């Protein structure tokens, strides 16, 4: 019996990967309406790199190793479809989009958790944070809604589909843990190597299912009042390369950091 059970779990792993749409890394950040809204004009959007490079690719690798299925989920409006198609081109099997523009991480997490509750998955993967709001929150929230163990900032995972050994990045090192059964994981650098979609993948992605479903609940916990830009540097002070005593003096007396 035990053998059958283990074998069954080794045979497949169904993973849900949460992907987010973010401005690309070099995008110029500006605001409209006196700092009320983010100015999306001229901004290119991409799949959040931590979701794409690490969470999605590692999930696909595990599917290739153990069998199973990779589903991607996005909480966003139709503008997200382009990054969803890219995830399908990289190797996800199917996609779902919850059709709402979320204002808070907890509302996003709620949508993902509701979807997991009505569709069984062995694991939920997502990037360690998005590069726009940098909150690193959704994974913890999803795991709480689902009452599952959570491994944040994972840089390695080995699993047979039943028992998993996960390495998390912590300050100044790593923590290695083991877990049996279902879990939520957020992906840090090192979990996988980036994959570039090939032409076959791009063609196949067009035929893969992308289901659009409505959102549930109210998004009422947070509101952004305004944005502003941080004060820029007042200008660089160039120091004579022959006179490092002067730099040390300035660091001590002027900026008081040593």
């Amino acid at each position, binding site marked *: 019996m035990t053998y059958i059970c283990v074998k069954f779990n080794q045979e497949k792993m169904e993973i849900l990967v949460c992907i987010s749409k973010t401005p690309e890394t070099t995008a110029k950040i500006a605001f409209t309406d006196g700092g009320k809204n983010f100015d999306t004009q001229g901004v290119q959007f991409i799949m959040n790199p931590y979701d794409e490079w690490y969470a999605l690719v590692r999930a696909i690798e595990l599917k290739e190793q153990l069998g199973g299925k990779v589903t991607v989920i996005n909480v966003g409006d139709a503008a997200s479809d382009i990054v969803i198609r890219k995830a399908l081109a990289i190797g996800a099997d199917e996609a779902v989009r919850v059709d709402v523009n979320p204002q808070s991480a907890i509302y996003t997490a709620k949508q993902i958790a509701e979807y997991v509750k009505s569709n069984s998955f062995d694991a939920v993967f997502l990037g360690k944070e998005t590069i726009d*709001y940098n909150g690193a929150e959704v994974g913890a929230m999803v795991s709480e809604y689902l009452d599952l163990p959570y491994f944040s900032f994972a840089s390695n995972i080995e699993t047979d589909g039943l028992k998993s050994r996960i390495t*998390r990045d912590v*300050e*100044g090192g790593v923590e290695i*843990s083991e877990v049996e059964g279902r879990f939520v994981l957020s992906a840090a650098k090192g979990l996988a190597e980036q994959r570039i979609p090939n032409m076959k993948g791009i063609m196949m992605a067009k035929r893969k299912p992308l289901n659009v479903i409505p959102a549930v609940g109210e998004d009422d916990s*947070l509101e952004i009042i305004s944005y502003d830009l941080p004060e820029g540097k007042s200008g*660089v002070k160039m120091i004579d390369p022959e006179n490092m*005593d002067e730099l040390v003096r300035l660091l001590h007396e002027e900026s008081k950091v040593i």
Partner: protein
Amino acid sequence: MSVLVYAESPKGKFKKTSLEVVYYGHLAAKAMNTDCIALVLGSTSDAAVLGKYGASKVIHVTDDSLDNFDAQTHSTAITKVAENVGANLVVFGFTANGKALTGRVGVKMNASILSGVSSVPNLENGFVLRKSVFSGKANAHYNLKKENKVISLMGNSFQIEELGSSAEVETMTLDLPTAKTVVKELKTVEGTVPLPEAELVVSAGRGMKGPENWGIIEELARTLGATTACSRPVADTGWRPHHEHVGQTGVAIRPNLYIAAGISGAIQHLAGVNKSKVIVVINKDPEAPFFKAADYGICADLFDVVPRLNEALKKFKQNN
């Protein structure tokens, strides 16, 4: 109503970020006209010391099972204590474990949740907090609308001050669920300050020409008592270990002093270091974009400048 702060104590010791969180809790409590209560989980030698940084009371949950990190068990313990003391603001550090807990405790408490904040709550028009967004390229001001709030504090946002003396410590045991995860090993580097917590950082990039030349960078770091870091290409080619990579896809840091040698300053690198208080850039290319983001610049060959800076610092250290 009160403010509850979770003071992490990995291996039984408080980190600098834990003390920052307590001090911040004190500032927030003052703004809210209430008390700051600090919470310690698992074995710790000296919980009372948190009083010095602004805790009016320390609650110490002593269960041994809390010595190993498990997000489910820890978040359950913290939520129980928050209910117990009637906390409506819970504060974490924006650390690896803080990030695993903030969302969980927030969901349990049906709270408004905000991570990586860098200001004391402004209560004039709701409960408004600032946080850095778009990888340091902007700030956003959020109103937290729910009655309960769970937040985490961006490291090095406030200069800690010692305020009082030891606090009264109340020990407590809780009925906690058994952890589903088993921590096998916690491997951390001893002797150096981890990058996310470092106040002084010396970093180098492709301008070093090869891993064999890193001696001058390590020496400079040693003289300063700084932590070493590197740019992405250097980590990707294996010249330096990955954990040293600072930037958008590596570690984001906010030290008091960041010295960058032989790094051109690509926008992705700046995204990880632009919160440094003072930036010194050493580069022989006068067109290097990093100079625009620097406070002090030296346009010269780093192989001449770095050893000279090291000598100047040694002289300074002897006289101060």
